[in-house]
């Protein structure tokens, strides 16, 4: 039996609904239709009255989840696309993220953001917004890269007492497969060394982990041993594991699919430079998507986001520095 990244997300929601009566799902087309990507397939049948179709009102979707969470529920909000979450941005960053700080009342909501592009998706169905949400105090931002993490981290997201932005990558939905779902996983706030190597550290998350691993395969043939660290959760992120890796390799390349300005990559590099300057033999580098809106045509889209070739080229240069 194989299970995809998308099915893992569905299975995690099914388990959360089964185990915890406080959980319900609210989002556009999530009911009988099963969601735009089928992440809630058959859940409405299985859990009558707990999978609610929402009007096209992201602000009200998130606002209502906050109110329900205050009353002790554990809502899961499915944004149809990460790109549309900004319509509910105010509720997320000003209401949900500040609630505990202001009132001592927790806001345990999970907001699922189908993120990243597929060929032809264009500027408004392809965004990666983890950097944007990471800017706001009070939010937890998860970026699972594997089938196993999609499953265990979504379950953790529902359990966490704070608002979680769960960035699930659409490119991985059906391309990533695993044999079975795990019973347990690493805690969400712990980074994973996805591949060991002595020459260079690549820190990546979400779909970029796989591009980094592909680059590492190529570089191994050239005699360069790359260590790949999968952040898993970008806010908060596991600086200790990153510093541990940089201590071994002395070189750091950060790869993320969001835009470069003030992003996860910048934060990781700033933290490493601040706390581990003495560990570095070369200036840390970063690769993001290009600083433009996301292009529609596959010819352009293919080079807009970081690819294994671009990562490998940057890694070679950094290795030679």
């Amino acid at each position, binding site marked *: 039996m194989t299970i995809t990244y998308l099915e893992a997300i569905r299975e995690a929601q099914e388990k959360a609904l089964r185990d915890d009566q406080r959980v*319900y799902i609210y989002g556009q087309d999530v009911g009988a239709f099963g969601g735009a990507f089928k992440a809630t397939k058959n859940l409405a049948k299985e859990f009558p009255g*707990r999978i*609610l179709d*929402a*009007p096209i*009102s*992201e*602000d*009200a*979707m*998130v*606002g*209502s*989840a*906050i*109110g*329900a*969470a*205050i*009353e*002790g*529920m554990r*809502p899961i909000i499915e944004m149809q696309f990460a790109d549309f979450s900004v319509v509910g941005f*105010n*509720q997320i960053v*000003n*209401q949900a*993220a*500040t*609630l*505990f*700080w*202001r*009132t*001592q*009342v*927790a*806001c*345990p909501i999970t907001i699922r953001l189908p993120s990243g592009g597929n060929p032809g998706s264009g500027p408004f169905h392809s965004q990666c917004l983890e950097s944007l949400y990471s800017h706001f*105090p*009070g939010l*937890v931002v998860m970026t699972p890269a594997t089938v196993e993490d999609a499953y265990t981290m979504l379950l953790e997201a529902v359990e*966490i*007492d*704070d608002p979680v932005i769960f960035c699930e990558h659409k490119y991985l939905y059906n391309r990533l497969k695993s044999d079975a779902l795990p019973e347990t996983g690493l*805690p969400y*706030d712990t980074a994973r060394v996805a591949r060991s190597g002595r020459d260079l550290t690549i820190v990546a998350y979400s779909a970029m982990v796989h591009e980094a691993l592909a680059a590492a395969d190529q570089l191994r043939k050239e005699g360069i041993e790359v260590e790949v660290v999968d952040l898993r959760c970008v806010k*908060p992120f596991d600086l200790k594991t990153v510093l541990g890796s940089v201590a071994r390799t002395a070189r750091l390349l950060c790869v993320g699919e969001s835009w470069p300005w003030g992003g996860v990559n910048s934060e990781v590099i700033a933290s490493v430079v601040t706390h581990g300057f003495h560990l570095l033999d070369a200036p840390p580098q970063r690769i993001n998507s290009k600083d433009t809106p996301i292009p529609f045509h596959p010819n352009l889209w293919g080079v807009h986001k970081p690819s294994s070739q671009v990562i490998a080229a940057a890694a070679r240069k950094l290795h030679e520095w």
Partner: protein
Amino acid sequence: MLDTLKEPKREVVSSVSREQYVDAFRWMLLGRTVEEKLASLWRTGKISGGVYLGKGQEAISAALGIMLKSGDIFGPLIRDQAGRLAFGEPLIDVFRVHFGSRTGLSRGRDGNVHRGNPREGYHAMISHLGSLISVVAGALLARRFKGDASAIGATTIGDGGTSTGAFHEAINMAAIEKLPLVVVVVNNQYAYSTPNSRQFACSDLVDRAIGYGVEGHSLDGTDLRDCLEVLAHATARARAGRGPQMVVGSCLRLTGHAEHDDAFYMDKSLYHTRLGRDCLKVAETYLQQHQWADEVLLENWRKNAKERVEEAVADAQREPLADPSTETWCPYATQRIAEALLVR
């Protein structure tokens, strides 16, 4: 709209009892007294940031507050001091939050009108207008999930707040879910300095109710009796499962947007219309006309309100203020994250 506020059509025999009227009036009076004190504390530099007052809106606010029962949900806005007290806000919390007391609910982290006790169904607004409506709706959704069909939720908004997308999304959503939500639109004619003519083009905001598929009601916000009758009716209908109720109350903001604002831009002629009446004065006259209270009793109530306020201020002033050295600087509720931050 500005000059069309007419005396409401009334039942010959009002359903409002002396007890209820007096109850609401005393919350109005206490709210006004609290706010006069807040204004004076602000003028003498005892309060940081803004002080937002509800002068002229106490009748609507208090009437709404007393219609809510224990277990109901309330999401007040900036001019709801009277309603907050009627809903059960402890007097001292008003001053704790304004002073930034370490003991208060927000511990100096947020101030003035951004206060509440959400765990008790008393929600703490943020500054973004319209955004609290869906939160109250969501709390009602949770009650439905939990099988509690007895509670209703109420929230207020101004004329300006009706222009937001959040207002539209939330009422539409609440209507779809047929939630027992009462949205009270207090049309006080101005949003900061912007008059209604620059805020909306419909002839009456209550007409929007039809568009949302909810029941609409209008009331004269200067007349406590009308406020009590209409809000009793609207809250009863919400309680009876008739879905969201939109109540539009008309009045005039008898103050600036906040204490720093002298409201020079307001059309002064409005003060001489029915809209411009001070609801507290109107209620005092009503009480006397119906021989429900004489001047001696009114003076007693005023004195009592002042004493209670002075006592609360004195108590709150004795409390320690927010202190950076005792602040956790941690915005997370999750134990694991909080512990990691504290170690760092």
